[in-house]
């Protein structure tokens, strides 16, 4: 399968990565190369094969539903590009 500039633009949007219009053809070409590589998987007979879900057959452990951590507001906010009054600050989300 080959990816065109329209598909590349859509994938970039879904990925929340801005790509300039002029860069779309090269991106499409490189993504096509990667997808072309993946196409080999079509040659494998996977009839009746269950998709692998975990490396070792282990049941994910459950833990008690209790508070085990917290009260670290300053530490949590310390690396934020913009933190104000104890919150993460972002541009206006709703008009």
């Amino acid at each position, binding site marked *: 399968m080959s990816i065109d500039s329209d598909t590349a633009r859509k*994938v970039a949007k879904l990925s929340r990565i801005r790509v300039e219009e002029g860069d779309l053809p090269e991106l499409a070409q490189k993504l096509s190369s990667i997808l072309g590589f993946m196409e080999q998987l079509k040659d494998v007979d996977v009839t009746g094969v269950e998709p692998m879900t975990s490396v070792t057959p282990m049941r994910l452990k459950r833990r008690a539903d209790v508070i085990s951590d917290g009260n670290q507001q300053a530490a949590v906010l310390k690396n934020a590009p913009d933190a104000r009054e104890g919150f993460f600050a972002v541009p206006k989300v709703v008009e």
Partner: protein
Amino acid sequence: MSADMSGAASRANGWTVAEARDALRKGEVTAVDLTMACLTAIDAGDGLNAFVHKTPELALEQARAADARLAGGDAPAMCGIPVGVKDLFAVKGVPTQAGSNILRGFRPEYDSTVTAKLWGAGAVCLGKLNMDEFAMGSSNESSCYGPAVNPWKVDDRQLTPGGSSGGSAAAVAADLCLAALGTDTGGSIRQPAAFCGITGIKPTYGRVSRWGIVAYASSLDQAGPMTRTVRDAAIVLEAMAGHDPKDSTSAELAVPDFEAALTGDIRGKKIGIPREYRLDGMPTEIAALWDRGMDMMRDAGAEIVDISLPHTKYALPTYYVIAPAEASSNLARYDGVRYGHRAKLAQGDGITEMYEKTRAEGFGPEVQRRIMAGTYVLSAGFYDAYYNRARKVRALIKRDFELAFAAGIDAILAPATPSSAFGLGEQGGADPVEMYLNDVFTVTLNLAGLPGVAVPVGLDAKGLPLGLQLIGRPWEEADLLNHAYVLERAAGFVAKPGKWW
């Protein structure tokens, strides 16, 4: 450096972990002297671009504490041992960027479980090591710091140390540290180890906690040591391994005494040679090295058995569906809100523009491509055709190994890489897939979750190191390391890169 430091101690940066441990316990050297020798070598090694964040003050503080502990007689094996840490591991208060501009300025408020265990055992942190951005690469060239350089050099070219743990491999090979931490998602410990002539082990998935290690592809990522000897790998791995309630995939299994398993006795063991690994066009030097490895194992009393892993050729395409799919999900967290870079916004930009500009500025081209490839294979209409199909093929790849082990195979011997180190800038410029082919021998066992170790075995005609890889049964790193120990002793690889940096 202390005035009375002996000549031997000033070269202690070149010691093995085992030698340093024994000398520290006997009081023949102090952790401070050992650390100073490494810090001096690191400052003289800037041309290698291996250490990208140096932590001399932290190192000396930890070294002084280690000396006090050694004097008190309470000294675990890693007490006073200076190590380098791949930039993927969170270290409290130390820049942790995963080789990416999107994490510029990030200083974690916590340590990864692995680094916390090492510091708890008295190890000394020398700093953070260069790597491919988010561990995506096989040459260290996708790093935001620029590439680390291989200390091995045979002409006027600078060679790649491999990747993604390129800085770790270069630092250990150039004697900047005694051991380094690496991570391996598709070969990122074993390929650079082979390119730099050192030893590196990727443990069984779940043996080492992933908590606090920046995630790339969570079902494949596993941390491990990179060292100058197999014994050192055993010592450092033991300190890193163990169950961690904070990583739900970490196994609740006791950690064996890996060093004690190094008996050198593999008589009667069955070593599998997968015929599918003998690729068309395999360089004769790689094929000859592999044959020599078989002779070494045979001479040690093991039986060489021809085996088949029929789905081998599908491992790379499977990996390049699954890893980008997981990465696209894992890297969604870099949104410019909680940590790292945020783009400068224009008048009227809303939150979507903030995400899109931040991620375009922060992620390099290869990371962007993998996020987008992963997004594509997970998107509606393609999920079954690509992602689910890859997960099914992955099950078949894993079954290939299970059948081989069920037939009595103890370990599998294979090349580690399809070539020796190549020049920086020589691969993957036009087609990203060219670079992906570097992982052809290493990626299968990440998909199957198996342990694998790369051991330096010889030099090619150009004078560059080549490694072989041993693949073990799940959870049997001890046995695997013993096989590697036999290979190491038989190969007698003692070559070191000449110092040009």
